[in-house]
């Protein structure tokens, strides 16, 4: 901007953009924007940490996670790239851990292959398909793999692909992705494909009732289950300075959202935050496997 002002030597003319609409910001928002402006990071980059525990009541870990992030910075503009996946193999089914492991490997392999030439190879060839088409196809590929390699099993999957500032999520089941915008706001960006969530959406039961409902683990959509699969695919901007939290229900089912947010902002770094979240779920009884990925976008 300064460069531009110097170039054209005019300061008083504000840009006129016919279609732009801005809403007034609250003091809290302004403060967080100011705080961010004081700490700028170049190049724009993704920080990632993870945590996992079998829990205190099970012997087998059926959760799987995958993280990968890359920064290529130089003269030519390369966007930050990240892929983060949590899969929760379904209890009560055989081979739940096979299903979740097959799923993260299939999806990560599919997506990395798609991006390899463009991001890491010398060709720099653009990727033909859209980000949404790629994650959708990757989930369908996982569905085929699970049906083939672990028939009868099932798994959730929440896969987050970050390219530039665009966060594209493919989601099946009841693992969750949250965005944390600042200390005041944390928002689930996935919708559980579970019976209780459906009952809750239909107004049959309250969120409090859902949290203790005996059938709270029953999914109506999962990888490896059913003839047709329709993952939720959605793209949303990743807020600079904000966090992406992906976790299995072993975490969110035991630790309330407010507590998760408090841990993220209270911990000295994201690695500690992940460990503290896992510890909080275990402290609450740890009845299920616990998996968490925490990503911060600095820029």
């Amino acid at each position, binding site marked *: 901007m300064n460069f531009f002002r110097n170039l054209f030597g005019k300061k008083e003319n504000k840009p006129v953009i*016919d279609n732009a609409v801005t809403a007034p910001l609250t003091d809290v928002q302004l403060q967080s924007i100011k705080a961010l402006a004081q700490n700028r990071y170049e190049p724009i980059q993704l920080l990632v940490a993870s945590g996992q525990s079998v829990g205190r009541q099970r012997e087998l870990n059926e959760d799987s996670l995958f993280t990968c992030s890359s920064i290529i910075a130089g003269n030519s503009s390369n966007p930050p790239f990240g892929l983060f996946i949590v899969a929760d193999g379904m209890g009560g089914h055989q081979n739940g851990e096979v299903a979740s492991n097959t799923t993260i490997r299939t999806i990560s392999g599919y997506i990395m292959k798609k991006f390899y030439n463009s991001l890491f190879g010398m060709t720099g060839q653009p990727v033909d398909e859209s980000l949404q088409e790629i994650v959708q196809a990757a989930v369908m590929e996982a569905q085929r793999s699970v049906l083939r390699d672990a028939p009868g099993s099932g798994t959730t999957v929440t896969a987050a692909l970050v390219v530039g500032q665009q966060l594209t999520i493919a989601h099946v089941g009841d693992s969750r992705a949250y965005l944390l915008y600042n200390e005041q706001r944390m928002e689930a960006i996935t919708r559980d494909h579970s019976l209780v969530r459906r009952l809750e959406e239909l*107004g049959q039961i309250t969120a409090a009732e859902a949290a203790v409902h005996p059938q709270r683990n029953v999914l109506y959509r999962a990888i490896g289950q059913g003839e047709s699969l329709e993952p939720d695919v959605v793209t949303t901007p990743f807020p600079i300075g904000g966090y992406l939290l992906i976790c299995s229900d072993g975490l969110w089912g035991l630790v309330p959202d407010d507590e998760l947010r408090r841990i993220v902002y209270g911990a000295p770094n994201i690695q500690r935050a992940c460990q503290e979240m896992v510890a909080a779920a275990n402290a609450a009884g740890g009845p299920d496997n616990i998996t968490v990925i925490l990503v911060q976008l600095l820029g």
Partner: protein
Amino acid sequence: METQRINQVPEPGSRRTTTGQLRSGTNLVNRYLIQDVIGVGGMGSVYRARDLHFPNVVKLVAVKEMINQAPDPLVRQIVVQNFEREANILATLSHPSIPRIYDYFTLENRSYLVLEYVNGNDLEVTLSQIDGFIPEEQVLDWAIQLCDVLSFLHNHKPDPIIFRDMKPSNVMVNQHNHIILVDFGIAKPFQVGQKGTMIGTEGYSPPEQYRGEANAQADVYALGATLHHLITRRDPRLEPPFSFGERPIRKINPSVSLEFETVINTALQYNVESRFKTIDDFKQALIGAGRKTGLLNRINTNQSSSGVSVNKSGIKPVWAFQCEDEIRGTPFYLSGLLYTGCYDNNLYALNASNGEFQWKYATQGGVVSRPTAMDENIFFGSEDKRMYAVNSRTGKLTWAYDTDGRIRSSGRIADGHIFIGSDDKYLHAVNLTTGRLAWRFEVGDEVRSTPFIVNDLIYFGTEGGELICLDFRGQSKWRFKAKRSITSSPWVQDNVVYFNSMDGFMYALDAKSGWLVWRFRMEKGSIVSPYISENLVFTGSLDGYLYAVDLHTSKEVWKYKTNHQVNGSPVVYKDAIYAGSVDNHLYCIEIRTGRLRWKFESKGPITGTPCLYDDFLYFGSTDHFIYALMA
């Protein structure tokens, strides 16, 4: 709760009965003059009344009377409080299929609700007046409308509203064949001596409602039951409960399509889990069935020719101004004046309120470029290869800037400069005050797209099919290649660039890097620019459709078919989008539903984008006229 609508007028001299019907001529609270009884129910009567607060017009309202039968004064008070709370909730609902609530008051042991008067019949009466079966396409049309209003209620925040009492007699059809849901649970507090909280009507209610449970899927079931009744004429109240499965639709009415029957059967499943999960799923299934059978297209055509509340003959322009040749571009409003280019080579300035001619500026070529303004000057390009800066009040030339090709792009102003494309294959950055070139960027193809500028970056498309992002120095940040030309002007929102290409896709790219986030396939190419409002992006295409697409999921929310190519961009104003079509019409479509509200016919294709300001809608047509309508 059970309200029977009656069509007969009670005898004029009849006295108040023990249930206490008001005589016509009674004036309630010195405002509502009772005219007729239009319904009687267990709680009281419904009257047609005239609102005397509007002395110069006859404003009719419906007055619903509810008699408080509770003997205990404390209970009576609670009943009134509950009624007023429900009335307050209903008063906040704004939907074309829900009657508006104007007023409520309580006089002694009677409470009154004053609401929109619906001129029409309920579906039970309608059914009784028809010989034979109601055509499937008619029932389908009503069904989709009912899904819309139920979806609106179910998505109500903070709490969903379950209608709980869907049945033919609670659905009114007005003179425009639009459905209106009546008899909300407003009278519920006045019910006495009923068992539990069960309030659904027997015959239409799902099993779980009999256990005191009612959710959105109860409305799905009851709507299914209502449709079953309408299409078969078999009244479920005369049959054993939950016995729809024993009355297969096509056995009774063989003209019904298998698709429609299947959808209704799904809604009528005994198990909640087997029904549609939401009313929106129900609606999608109905639309799917309608598409398969082809009935949906017929409904749309019917609506556009006769079923709309205001058709072409009903809409009169506030003013129209005739130029000497075609107007293909987009007008621009500034401070009471409307500026528009024309293929008679002039830029016109008209008084926006009455269309009075102010001045015109003659160039040497057709003007399709949309004018823009800054500090007393209007800027626009012409096919004579020049960009002009003209004083907005006097029409006198401030400066002119020459390019080497025809200018079809429109200028965009930022930081003291105007950015505009030309058929000379450059994007030009020109100083606003001096009219001198700051820099130009060589593209290799014509630039007809209008640049979009945000965060010090400039986005525009080229006829070679590239979408280019430049910084303010005129250096390329990134380029994206579509398969065919990009005449469409990009729109950037939340760091995503949206635009169309002649290759038949609408694209969404990351604004920083140019990565493809999603693409949406249309049936043909498009030169239309997308328009974004809330979570939807609106656009059109040569395939004749107007589209509404979800920004985040890239899923089609609705599409509307015009009768020819859509070349002008849609514009959102309040709860509607406005767009022209080569079929000569300017369309007004409801944002949420994609339903036609009205259309206006000019005498030539409309290829520009309308301009909306202060409830006025301005647009030009190739019939040489510029029109002003009320939005």
